[in-house]
Protein backbone atom coordinates (compact mmCIF):
# COMPACT_ATOMS: atom_id res chain seq x y z
CA UNK A 1 0.00 0.00 0.00
CA UNK A 2 2.97 2.31 0.48
CA UNK A 3 3.35 4.42 -2.64
CA UNK A 4 6.74 3.98 -4.20
CA UNK A 5 9.35 6.57 -3.40
CA UNK A 6 9.71 9.62 -5.63
CA UNK A 7 12.94 10.70 -3.92
CA UNK A 8 15.62 11.65 -6.35
CA UNK A 9 18.68 13.88 -6.58
CA UNK A 10 18.29 17.47 -7.69
CA UNK A 11 20.39 16.66 -10.74
CA UNK A 12 18.06 13.81 -11.75
CA UNK A 13 14.90 15.77 -11.05
CA UNK A 14 15.98 18.62 -13.32
CA UNK A 15 17.54 16.40 -15.98
CA UNK A 16 14.37 14.34 -16.30
CA UNK A 17 11.73 16.91 -15.52
CA UNK A 18 12.84 20.06 -17.33
CA UNK A 19 13.16 19.72 -21.09
CA UNK A 20 14.65 22.45 -23.27
CA UNK A 21 11.84 24.66 -24.50
CA UNK A 22 9.48 23.88 -21.67
CA UNK A 23 7.31 26.29 -19.71
CA UNK A 24 8.22 26.30 -16.05
CA UNK A 25 6.75 28.03 -13.02
CA UNK A 26 9.07 28.75 -10.13
CA UNK A 27 9.33 31.32 -7.42
CA UNK A 28 5.59 31.03 -6.85
CA UNK A 29 6.04 32.13 -3.24
CA UNK A 30 6.78 35.65 -4.59
CA UNK A 31 9.42 36.60 -2.01
CA UNK A 32 9.66 33.45 0.10
CA UNK A 33 10.43 29.79 -0.62
CA UNK A 34 12.01 30.54 -3.99
CA UNK A 35 13.72 27.39 -5.31
CA UNK A 36 17.13 28.89 -5.94
CA UNK A 37 18.95 25.56 -5.70
CA UNK A 38 16.74 24.09 -8.41
CA UNK A 39 17.10 27.20 -10.54
CA UNK A 40 20.88 26.99 -10.25
CA UNK A 41 20.79 23.34 -11.30
CA UNK A 42 18.85 24.39 -14.41
CA UNK A 43 21.65 26.89 -15.10
CA UNK A 44 24.35 24.25 -14.56
CA UNK A 45 22.60 21.87 -16.94
CA UNK A 46 22.53 24.63 -19.58
CA UNK A 47 18.82 24.26 -20.26
CA UNK A 48 17.74 26.42 -23.18
CA UNK A 49 14.61 28.03 -24.56
CA UNK A 50 12.63 28.01 -21.32
CA UNK A 51 9.54 30.09 -20.74
CA UNK A 52 9.46 31.26 -17.12
CA UNK A 53 6.17 31.81 -15.33
CA UNK A 54 5.84 33.54 -11.97
CA UNK A 55 4.55 36.74 -10.44
CA UNK A 56 7.78 38.10 -8.94
CA UNK A 57 10.38 35.44 -8.15
CA UNK A 58 12.84 38.01 -6.85
CA UNK A 59 16.27 37.62 -8.52
CA UNK A 60 15.92 34.01 -9.68
CA UNK A 61 14.44 34.95 -13.06
CA UNK A 62 17.20 37.49 -13.59
CA UNK A 63 19.80 34.77 -12.97
CA UNK A 64 18.20 32.26 -15.34
CA UNK A 65 17.97 34.96 -18.00
CA UNK A 66 21.62 35.90 -17.47
CA UNK A 67 22.63 32.27 -17.85
CA UNK A 68 20.96 32.14 -21.27
CA UNK A 69 18.31 29.58 -20.33
CA UNK A 70 15.30 31.72 -21.17
CA UNK A 71 13.34 32.47 -24.31
CA UNK A 72 10.28 34.17 -22.75
CA UNK A 73 8.90 35.41 -19.44
CA UNK A 74 5.26 35.51 -18.37
CA UNK A 75 5.45 37.56 -15.18
CA UNK A 76 4.16 40.54 -13.25
CA UNK A 77 7.51 41.86 -12.09
CA UNK A 78 11.11 40.87 -12.70
CA UNK A 79 13.89 42.42 -10.67
CA UNK A 80 15.41 42.50 -7.23
CA UNK A 81 12.79 43.10 -4.56
CA UNK A 82 14.88 45.38 -2.35
CA UNK A 83 16.85 47.21 -5.02
CA UNK A 84 14.64 47.40 -8.10
CA UNK A 85 15.78 46.50 -11.59
CA UNK A 86 17.37 43.23 -12.61
CA UNK A 87 20.18 43.94 -15.01
CA UNK A 88 20.11 40.69 -16.98
CA UNK A 89 16.39 41.09 -17.51
CA UNK A 90 16.83 44.68 -18.68
CA UNK A 91 19.62 43.78 -21.07
CA UNK A 92 17.71 40.85 -22.50
CA UNK A 93 14.47 42.75 -23.07
CA UNK A 94 16.07 45.92 -24.34
CA UNK A 95 18.12 43.95 -26.86
CA UNK A 96 15.11 41.86 -27.91
CA UNK A 97 16.64 38.56 -26.80
CA UNK A 98 13.62 37.51 -24.73
CA UNK A 99 9.90 38.05 -25.09
CA UNK A 100 7.75 39.29 -22.21
CA UNK A 101 4.09 38.71 -21.54
CA UNK A 102 3.16 41.42 -19.02
CA UNK A 103 0.92 40.44 -16.11
CA UNK A 104 -0.13 41.93 -12.83
CA UNK A 105 0.13 39.77 -9.72
CA UNK A 106 -3.61 39.20 -9.90
CA UNK A 107 -3.77 38.28 -13.57
CA UNK A 108 -0.88 35.88 -13.13
CA UNK A 109 -2.48 34.30 -10.07
CA UNK A 110 -5.71 33.93 -12.03
CA UNK A 111 -3.98 32.45 -15.06
CA UNK A 112 -2.49 29.72 -12.88
CA UNK A 113 -5.70 29.28 -10.91
CA UNK A 114 -7.55 28.79 -14.20
CA UNK A 115 -5.01 26.12 -15.11
CA UNK A 116 -5.47 24.52 -11.71
CA UNK A 117 -9.25 24.59 -12.07
CA UNK A 118 -9.30 23.18 -15.57
CA UNK A 119 -11.07 26.15 -17.15
CA UNK A 120 -9.67 28.08 -20.13
CA UNK A 121 -10.04 31.51 -18.51
CA UNK A 122 -11.10 33.40 -15.39
CA UNK A 123 -12.65 36.86 -15.21
CA UNK A 124 -11.40 39.81 -13.17
CA UNK A 125 -11.97 43.53 -12.73
CA UNK A 126 -8.27 44.43 -12.76
CA UNK A 127 -6.17 45.94 -15.54
CA UNK A 128 -9.13 47.46 -17.43
CA UNK A 129 -7.90 50.47 -19.33
CA UNK A 130 -4.24 49.57 -18.79
CA UNK A 131 -1.67 48.80 -21.46
CA UNK A 132 -1.26 45.27 -20.14
CA UNK A 133 -3.74 44.40 -22.86
CA UNK A 134 -1.21 45.68 -25.40
CA UNK A 135 1.69 43.54 -24.21
CA UNK A 136 -0.27 40.42 -23.23
CA UNK A 137 -2.35 38.62 -25.83
CA UNK A 138 -3.79 36.40 -23.09
CA UNK A 139 -5.90 39.21 -21.66
CA UNK A 140 -9.15 40.08 -23.39
CA UNK A 141 -12.01 42.39 -22.59
CA UNK A 142 -15.35 40.60 -22.10
CA UNK A 143 -18.87 41.45 -20.97
CA UNK A 144 -20.48 39.73 -17.99
CA UNK A 145 -23.40 37.56 -19.18
CA UNK A 146 -25.40 38.52 -16.09
CA UNK A 147 -24.57 42.15 -15.29
CA UNK A 148 -23.22 43.39 -18.66
CA UNK A 149 -20.22 44.83 -16.80
CA UNK A 150 -16.92 45.07 -18.61
CA UNK A 151 -14.37 42.55 -17.31
CA UNK A 152 -10.92 41.25 -18.11
CA UNK A 153 -10.68 37.61 -19.16
CA UNK A 154 -7.34 36.02 -18.25
CA UNK A 155 -6.38 32.92 -20.24
CA UNK A 156 -5.27 29.85 -18.29
CA UNK A 157 -1.61 28.96 -18.00
CA UNK A 158 -0.81 25.25 -17.74
CA UNK A 159 2.95 25.05 -17.22
CA UNK A 160 4.86 21.95 -18.19
CA UNK A 161 6.70 21.98 -14.89
CA UNK A 162 6.33 23.52 -11.44
CA UNK A 163 9.18 23.60 -8.96
CA UNK A 164 8.01 24.21 -5.40
CA UNK A 165 10.24 24.62 -2.39
CA UNK A 166 8.64 23.51 0.90
CA UNK A 167 9.63 22.88 4.49
CA UNK A 168 9.05 19.13 4.61
CA UNK A 169 7.84 16.30 2.43
CA UNK A 170 7.58 12.56 2.55
CA UNK A 171 9.08 10.33 -0.10
CA UNK A 172 5.71 9.88 -1.83
CA UNK A 173 5.38 13.60 -2.49
CA UNK A 174 3.08 14.76 0.30
CA UNK A 175 4.44 18.16 1.30
CA UNK A 176 3.85 20.58 4.14
CA UNK A 177 4.15 24.28 3.49
CA UNK A 178 3.54 27.09 5.93
CA UNK A 179 3.87 30.84 5.88
CA UNK A 180 2.27 32.98 3.20
CA UNK A 181 1.67 30.99 0.02
CA UNK A 182 1.82 33.50 -2.83
CA UNK A 183 0.67 31.47 -5.82
CA UNK A 184 2.31 28.22 -4.76
CA UNK A 185 -0.90 26.23 -4.59
CA UNK A 186 -2.03 27.41 -8.01
CA UNK A 187 1.40 26.75 -9.52
CA UNK A 188 1.51 23.16 -8.31
CA UNK A 189 -2.08 22.35 -9.18
CA UNK A 190 -1.88 23.90 -12.64
CA UNK A 191 1.27 22.15 -13.82
CA UNK A 192 1.70 18.86 -15.67
CA UNK A 193 4.86 17.82 -13.82
CA UNK A 194 5.65 18.84 -10.25
CA UNK A 195 9.07 18.80 -8.58
CA UNK A 196 9.01 19.32 -4.81
CA UNK A 197 12.23 20.49 -3.14
CA UNK A 198 12.13 20.17 0.64
CA UNK A 199 14.26 21.38 3.50
CA UNK A 200 13.54 18.08 5.24
CA UNK A 201 12.40 14.64 4.16
CA UNK A 202 10.23 13.20 6.90
CA UNK A 203 8.26 10.08 7.67
CA UNK A 204 4.85 9.88 6.00
CA UNK A 205 3.10 10.05 9.34
CA UNK A 206 4.52 13.50 10.14
CA UNK A 207 2.76 14.81 7.07
CA UNK A 208 -0.38 12.69 7.50
CA UNK A 209 -0.91 13.94 11.02
CA UNK A 210 -1.77 17.35 9.54
CA UNK A 211 -3.48 16.95 6.17
CA UNK A 212 -4.65 20.59 6.10
CA UNK A 213 -1.06 21.70 5.66
CA UNK A 214 -0.46 19.57 2.58
CA UNK A 215 0.12 21.76 -0.48
CA UNK A 216 -1.26 19.54 -3.22
CA UNK A 217 -2.26 15.90 -3.70
CA UNK A 218 0.68 13.53 -3.59
CA UNK A 219 -0.42 11.83 -6.78
CA UNK A 220 0.24 15.09 -8.64
CA UNK A 221 3.89 15.21 -7.48
CA UNK A 222 6.48 13.57 -9.74
CA UNK A 223 9.77 14.05 -7.91
CA UNK A 224 10.87 14.84 -4.37
CA UNK A 225 14.29 16.34 -3.74
CA UNK A 226 16.03 16.88 -0.42
CA UNK A 227 17.35 20.42 -0.76
CA UNK A 228 18.41 21.95 2.56
CA UNK A 229 19.03 25.71 2.26
CA UNK A 230 17.60 25.33 -1.22
CA UNK A 231 15.58 28.55 -1.01
CA UNK A 232 18.50 30.70 0.18
CA UNK A 233 18.79 33.70 -0.12
CA UNK A 234 14.97 33.96 0.03
CA UNK A 235 13.36 33.50 3.45
CA UNK A 236 12.14 30.04 4.46
CA UNK A 237 9.65 30.05 7.36
CA UNK A 238 10.74 27.63 10.04
CA UNK A 239 14.29 27.47 8.69
CA UNK A 240 16.12 30.67 7.83
CA UNK A 241 15.69 34.41 7.36
CA UNK A 242 16.12 36.34 4.15
CA UNK A 243 19.77 37.00 3.30
CA UNK A 244 19.47 40.66 2.38
CA UNK A 245 23.22 41.01 1.91
CA UNK A 246 23.22 38.53 -0.95
CA UNK A 247 20.51 40.45 -2.78
CA UNK A 248 22.57 43.63 -2.38
CA UNK A 249 25.83 42.06 -3.52
CA UNK A 250 24.05 40.42 -6.47
CA UNK A 251 22.81 43.84 -7.52
CA UNK A 252 26.34 45.19 -7.53
CA UNK A 253 27.91 42.15 -9.18
CA UNK A 254 25.36 41.68 -11.98
CA UNK A 255 25.60 45.19 -13.42
CA UNK A 256 27.61 43.99 -16.40
CA UNK A 257 27.47 40.72 -18.34
CA UNK A 258 31.04 40.03 -17.20
CA UNK A 259 30.13 40.69 -13.61
CA UNK A 260 27.21 38.31 -13.85
CA UNK A 261 29.39 35.63 -15.46
CA UNK A 262 31.78 35.86 -12.54
CA UNK A 263 28.88 35.70 -10.11
CA UNK A 264 27.52 32.60 -11.85
CA UNK A 265 30.92 30.93 -11.90
CA UNK A 266 31.23 31.36 -8.17
CA UNK A 267 27.69 30.80 -6.88
CA UNK A 268 26.36 28.34 -9.44
CA UNK A 269 28.93 26.56 -11.57
CA UNK A 270 31.39 25.91 -8.77
CA UNK A 271 28.63 24.35 -6.68
CA UNK A 272 27.44 20.78 -7.14
CA UNK A 273 25.71 19.88 -3.91
CA UNK A 274 23.97 21.59 -1.04
CA UNK A 275 27.11 20.86 1.03
CA UNK A 276 29.19 22.82 -1.50
CA UNK A 277 26.70 25.66 -1.29
CA UNK A 278 26.75 25.74 2.48
CA UNK A 279 30.51 25.72 2.50
CA UNK A 280 30.50 28.70 0.13
CA UNK A 281 27.97 30.46 2.31
CA UNK A 282 30.02 29.83 5.42
CA UNK A 283 28.96 28.59 8.81
CA UNK A 284 28.95 32.00 10.38
CA UNK A 285 26.65 33.48 7.79
CA UNK A 286 24.35 30.47 7.98
CA UNK A 287 24.18 30.80 11.74
CA UNK A 288 23.31 34.47 11.40
CA UNK A 289 20.43 33.62 9.08
CA UNK A 290 19.08 30.80 11.20
CA UNK A 291 16.01 31.54 13.34
CA UNK A 292 16.88 33.27 16.60
CA UNK A 293 13.31 33.30 17.89
CA UNK A 294 11.03 30.28 17.66
CA UNK A 295 7.28 30.44 17.72
CA UNK A 296 5.45 27.13 17.49
CA UNK A 297 1.91 26.44 16.40
CA UNK A 298 -0.63 25.06 18.84
CA UNK A 299 -1.49 21.43 18.08
CA UNK A 300 -4.85 20.42 16.67
CA UNK A 301 -6.52 17.04 17.04
CA UNK A 302 -7.59 15.02 14.00
CA UNK A 303 -8.79 12.12 16.15
CA UNK A 304 -12.10 10.25 16.05
Amino acid at each position, binding site marked *: MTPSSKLTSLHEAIARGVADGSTIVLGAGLEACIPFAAGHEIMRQRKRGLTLVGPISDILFDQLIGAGCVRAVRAAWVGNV*ITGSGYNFRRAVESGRIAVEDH*SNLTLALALRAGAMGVPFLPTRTALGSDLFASNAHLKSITCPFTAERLTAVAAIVPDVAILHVQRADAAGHAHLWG*NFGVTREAGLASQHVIVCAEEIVAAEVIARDPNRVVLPGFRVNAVVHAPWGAHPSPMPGHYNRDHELFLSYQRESQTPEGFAAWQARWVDAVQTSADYLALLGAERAARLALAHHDYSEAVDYGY
Partner: protein
Amino acid sequence: MATEAQTRSYTPAELMVAAAAREIGDGEVVFVGMRLPLLGFQLAKRTHAPGAIGIYELGIIRSTPAPEPILTMGDLPNLCRAQWLADTLDVMSLLQRGDIHVSFIGGAQVDRFGNLNTSYIGGMAPGRIETRLPGSGGACDLASLAGRHIIIMPHEKRRFVPRVDYITSPGYGDGAGWRQRAGLTGGGPAAVITTLGVLRFDPDTGEMMLASVHPGVTVEQILAATGWPLRVAPQVTQTPEPTAEALAILRHFDPQGFWTGS
Protein backbone atom coordinates in the same frame (compact mmCIF):
# COMPACT_ATOMS: atom_id res chain seq x y z
CA MET B 1 17.53 71.86 -1.88
CA ALA B 2 19.61 68.78 -0.96
CA THR B 3 21.83 71.03 1.06
CA GLU B 4 18.90 72.66 2.73
CA ALA B 5 17.34 69.33 3.67
CA GLN B 6 20.59 68.13 5.15
CA THR B 7 20.52 70.99 7.60
CA ARG B 8 17.18 69.78 8.81
CA SER B 9 16.79 67.09 11.41
CA TYR B 10 15.20 64.65 8.96
CA THR B 11 15.87 63.26 5.52
CA PRO B 12 13.66 63.90 2.48
CA ALA B 13 12.60 60.25 2.60
CA GLU B 14 11.53 60.61 6.22
CA LEU B 15 9.37 63.56 5.28
CA MET B 16 7.76 61.53 2.50
CA VAL B 17 7.11 58.56 4.78
CA ALA B 18 5.51 60.82 7.36
CA ALA B 19 3.29 62.30 4.64
CA ALA B 20 2.35 58.81 3.47
CA ALA B 21 1.46 57.78 7.01
CA ARG B 22 -0.95 60.71 7.30
CA GLU B 23 -2.93 59.35 4.35
CA ILE B 24 -3.97 56.34 6.46
CA GLY B 25 -7.09 56.71 8.58
CA ASP B 26 -7.55 54.84 11.85
CA GLY B 27 -9.37 51.54 11.30
CA GLU B 28 -8.68 51.52 7.59
CA VAL B 29 -7.65 48.42 5.72
CA VAL B 30 -4.40 49.25 3.97
CA PHE B 31 -2.80 47.37 1.12
CA VAL B 32 0.83 48.01 2.02
CA GLY B 33 3.43 48.20 -0.73
CA MET B 34 7.17 47.85 -0.62
CA ARG B 35 9.79 50.39 0.46
CA LEU B 36 8.55 53.72 1.84
CA PRO B 37 4.90 52.63 2.26
CA LEU B 38 6.05 49.72 4.38
CA LEU B 39 7.49 52.26 6.80
CA GLY B 40 4.59 54.66 6.41
CA PHE B 41 2.20 51.97 7.52
CA GLN B 42 4.30 51.10 10.57
CA LEU B 43 4.44 54.78 11.47
CA ALA B 44 0.68 55.28 11.11
CA LYS B 45 0.02 52.21 13.28
CA ARG B 46 2.22 53.60 16.03
CA THR B 47 0.73 57.07 15.95
CA HIS B 48 -2.73 58.15 14.79
CA ALA B 49 -4.01 54.90 13.23
CA PRO B 50 -3.51 52.07 15.74
CA GLY B 51 -6.57 50.26 14.36
CA ALA B 52 -5.31 50.16 10.77
CA ILE B 53 -4.98 46.70 9.26
CA GLY B 54 -2.16 45.88 6.87
CA ILE B 55 -2.57 43.62 3.84
CA TYR B 56 0.40 42.42 1.81
CA GLU B 57 0.21 40.95 -1.68
CA LEU B 58 2.29 37.94 -0.65
CA GLY B 59 -0.78 36.69 1.25
CA ILE B 60 -0.37 38.32 4.66
CA ILE B 61 -2.69 40.28 6.95
CA ARG B 62 -1.36 41.95 10.09
CA SER B 63 -3.18 44.18 12.52
CA THR B 64 -0.24 44.24 14.94
CA PRO B 65 3.29 45.53 14.30
CA ALA B 66 5.94 42.99 13.32
CA PRO B 67 8.04 42.03 16.34
CA GLU B 68 11.24 43.25 14.66
CA PRO B 69 12.08 45.79 11.96
CA ILE B 70 11.67 44.36 8.47
CA LEU B 71 13.28 45.30 5.18
CA THR B 72 10.70 43.62 2.93
CA MET B 73 7.15 42.45 3.49
CA GLY B 74 8.30 38.84 3.11
CA ASP B 75 10.72 39.00 6.04
CA LEU B 76 9.86 36.36 8.60
CA PRO B 77 9.02 38.76 11.46
CA ASN B 78 6.16 40.00 9.28
CA LEU B 79 4.72 36.46 9.29
CA CYS B 80 5.11 35.71 12.98
CA ARG B 81 1.76 36.06 14.73
CA ALA B 82 0.17 37.58 11.66
CA GLN B 83 -3.62 37.60 11.62
CA TRP B 84 -3.89 35.63 8.37
CA LEU B 85 -1.40 33.85 6.15
CA ALA B 86 -2.98 32.77 2.90
CA ASP B 87 -2.72 32.90 -0.90
CA THR B 88 -1.95 35.97 -2.99
CA LEU B 89 -5.29 35.34 -4.65
CA ASP B 90 -7.02 35.48 -1.27
CA VAL B 91 -5.77 38.99 -0.51
CA MET B 92 -6.23 40.11 -4.11
CA SER B 93 -9.82 38.88 -3.83
CA LEU B 94 -10.38 41.11 -0.80
CA LEU B 95 -9.06 43.96 -2.92
CA GLN B 96 -11.30 43.10 -5.87
CA ARG B 97 -14.31 42.72 -3.59
CA GLY B 98 -13.84 46.29 -2.34
CA ASP B 99 -12.51 45.60 1.16
CA ILE B 100 -9.37 47.74 0.85
CA HIS B 101 -9.61 51.42 1.72
CA VAL B 102 -6.21 52.65 0.66
CA SER B 103 -3.07 51.40 -1.03
CA PHE B 104 0.36 52.71 -1.97
CA ILE B 105 2.36 52.31 -5.13
CA GLY B 106 5.51 53.71 -6.65
CA GLY B 107 6.30 54.48 -10.26
CA ALA B 108 8.96 55.49 -12.75
CA GLN B 109 6.70 57.78 -14.81
CA VAL B 110 3.45 59.50 -13.96
CA ASP B 111 1.29 61.79 -16.09
CA ARG B 112 -1.14 64.62 -15.46
CA PHE B 113 -4.03 62.19 -14.92
CA GLY B 114 -2.11 60.01 -12.48
CA ASN B 115 -1.47 57.12 -14.86
CA LEU B 116 1.66 55.26 -13.85
CA ASN B 117 4.31 53.49 -15.88
CA THR B 118 6.57 50.91 -14.29
CA SER B 119 7.07 48.80 -17.42
CA TYR B 120 8.58 50.40 -20.53
CA ILE B 121 10.31 53.74 -21.06
CA GLY B 122 10.17 54.65 -24.73
CA GLY B 123 7.37 52.25 -25.56
CA MET B 124 6.81 48.52 -25.69
CA ALA B 125 7.28 47.91 -29.39
CA PRO B 126 10.52 46.09 -30.33
CA GLY B 127 13.17 48.68 -31.09
CA ARG B 128 11.35 51.40 -29.17
CA ILE B 129 12.17 50.11 -25.69
CA GLU B 130 14.64 52.51 -24.12
CA THR B 131 14.45 51.08 -20.62
CA ARG B 132 12.70 47.96 -19.44
CA LEU B 133 11.46 48.45 -15.88
CA PRO B 134 10.45 45.62 -13.54
CA GLY B 135 6.71 45.74 -14.38
CA SER B 136 3.45 45.90 -12.49
CA GLY B 137 3.78 43.44 -9.65
CA GLY B 138 0.57 44.19 -7.80
CA ALA B 139 0.54 47.89 -8.70
CA CYS B 140 -1.91 47.60 -11.59
CA ASP B 141 -4.29 45.69 -9.29
CA LEU B 142 -4.06 48.27 -6.52
CA ALA B 143 -4.57 51.15 -8.95
CA SER B 144 -7.53 49.33 -10.50
CA LEU B 145 -9.30 48.11 -7.40
CA ALA B 146 -8.41 49.86 -4.13
CA GLY B 147 -10.79 52.41 -2.64
CA ARG B 148 -8.08 54.99 -3.31
CA HIS B 149 -4.37 54.81 -3.92
CA ILE B 150 -1.41 56.96 -3.09
CA ILE B 151 1.54 57.31 -5.44
CA ILE B 152 5.04 57.89 -4.06
CA MET B 153 7.89 58.86 -6.37
CA PRO B 154 10.82 61.20 -7.01
CA HIS B 155 9.82 64.53 -8.54
CA GLU B 156 11.81 64.91 -11.75
CA LYS B 157 10.82 66.33 -15.11
CA ARG B 158 11.68 63.11 -16.96
CA ARG B 159 9.33 61.23 -14.62
CA PHE B 160 6.45 63.73 -14.58
CA VAL B 161 5.45 63.55 -18.23
CA PRO B 162 2.35 64.78 -20.09
CA ARG B 163 1.48 61.24 -21.13
CA VAL B 164 3.14 58.04 -19.87
CA ASP B 165 4.71 55.78 -22.49
CA TYR B 166 2.74 52.78 -21.16
CA ILE B 167 -0.06 52.64 -18.60
CA THR B 168 0.95 49.96 -16.11
CA SER B 169 -1.37 51.22 -13.37
CA PRO B 170 -4.38 53.25 -14.43
CA GLY B 171 -5.04 56.64 -12.90
CA TYR B 172 -7.80 58.80 -14.36
CA GLY B 173 -6.91 57.84 -17.95
CA ASP B 174 -7.57 60.88 -20.08
CA GLY B 175 -9.74 62.60 -17.50
CA ALA B 176 -12.90 62.42 -15.41
CA GLY B 177 -15.26 59.58 -16.30
CA TRP B 178 -12.57 57.48 -17.94
CA ARG B 179 -12.32 55.00 -15.06
CA GLN B 180 -16.06 54.40 -15.03
CA ARG B 181 -16.08 53.84 -18.79
CA ALA B 182 -13.17 51.42 -18.49
CA GLY B 183 -15.06 49.45 -15.83
CA LEU B 184 -12.63 50.11 -12.99
CA THR B 185 -14.24 49.78 -9.55
CA GLY B 186 -11.44 51.30 -7.47
CA GLY B 187 -11.56 55.01 -6.71
CA GLY B 188 -8.31 56.04 -8.39
CA PRO B 189 -5.29 58.01 -7.19
CA ALA B 190 -5.90 60.32 -4.24
CA ALA B 191 -2.45 61.83 -3.86
CA VAL B 192 1.07 61.84 -5.26
CA ILE B 193 3.74 62.25 -2.62
CA THR B 194 7.01 63.33 -4.20
CA THR B 195 10.43 64.47 -3.13
CA LEU B 196 9.22 68.07 -3.54
CA GLY B 197 5.57 68.19 -2.55
CA VAL B 198 2.18 66.56 -2.37
CA LEU B 199 -0.21 66.62 -5.31
CA ARG B 200 -3.91 65.80 -5.38
CA PHE B 201 -6.51 65.43 -8.11
CA ASP B 202 -9.31 67.72 -9.22
CA PRO B 203 -12.46 65.62 -8.82
CA ASP B 204 -14.09 67.40 -11.78
CA THR B 205 -11.33 66.82 -14.29
CA GLY B 206 -9.16 64.06 -12.85
CA GLU B 207 -6.13 66.30 -13.30
CA MET B 208 -3.23 66.51 -10.88
CA MET B 209 -2.88 69.69 -8.80
CA LEU B 210 -0.16 70.87 -6.48
CA ALA B 211 -1.53 70.74 -2.92
CA SER B 212 1.48 71.28 -0.68
CA VAL B 213 5.18 72.02 -0.97
CA HIS B 214 7.78 70.47 1.28
CA PRO B 215 9.67 72.76 3.64
CA GLY B 216 12.35 74.65 1.72
CA VAL B 217 10.82 73.92 -1.68
CA THR B 218 9.17 76.59 -3.84
CA VAL B 219 6.19 76.27 -6.13
CA GLU B 220 8.44 77.35 -8.98
CA GLN B 221 10.85 74.52 -8.34
CA ILE B 222 7.98 72.08 -8.57
CA LEU B 223 6.61 73.60 -11.76
CA ALA B 224 10.07 73.37 -13.28
CA ALA B 225 10.33 69.72 -12.32
CA THR B 226 6.98 68.84 -13.90
CA GLY B 227 6.67 68.07 -17.61
CA TRP B 228 3.37 69.82 -18.20
CA PRO B 229 1.82 73.08 -16.99
CA LEU B 230 0.92 71.87 -13.54
CA ARG B 231 -2.14 73.39 -11.94
CA VAL B 232 -1.64 74.81 -8.49
CA ALA B 233 -4.38 74.56 -5.88
CA PRO B 234 -5.78 77.92 -4.76
CA GLN B 235 -4.37 77.48 -1.28
CA VAL B 236 -1.08 75.66 -1.44
CA THR B 237 0.16 74.74 2.00
CA GLN B 238 3.43 73.54 3.36
CA THR B 239 3.79 69.82 3.94
CA PRO B 240 4.03 69.27 7.71
CA GLU B 241 7.42 68.23 8.97
CA PRO B 242 7.70 64.86 10.68
CA THR B 243 7.35 65.13 14.43
CA ALA B 244 10.10 64.04 16.78
CA GLU B 245 7.91 61.10 17.77
CA ALA B 246 7.50 60.09 14.14
CA LEU B 247 11.24 60.31 13.52
CA ALA B 248 12.00 58.18 16.55
CA ILE B 249 9.58 55.53 15.34
CA LEU B 250 10.93 55.61 11.79
CA ARG B 251 14.48 55.20 13.01
CA HIS B 252 13.40 52.24 15.11
CA PHE B 253 11.91 50.54 12.05
CA ASP B 254 14.71 51.51 9.65
CA PRO B 255 17.66 51.59 12.03
CA GLN B 256 20.29 51.58 9.27
CA GLY B 257 18.49 54.14 7.14
CA PHE B 258 18.16 51.59 4.32
CA TRP B 259 14.97 53.21 3.04
CA THR B 260 15.09 56.62 4.65
CA GLY B 261 18.79 57.46 4.75
CA SER B 262 19.85 60.71 3.15
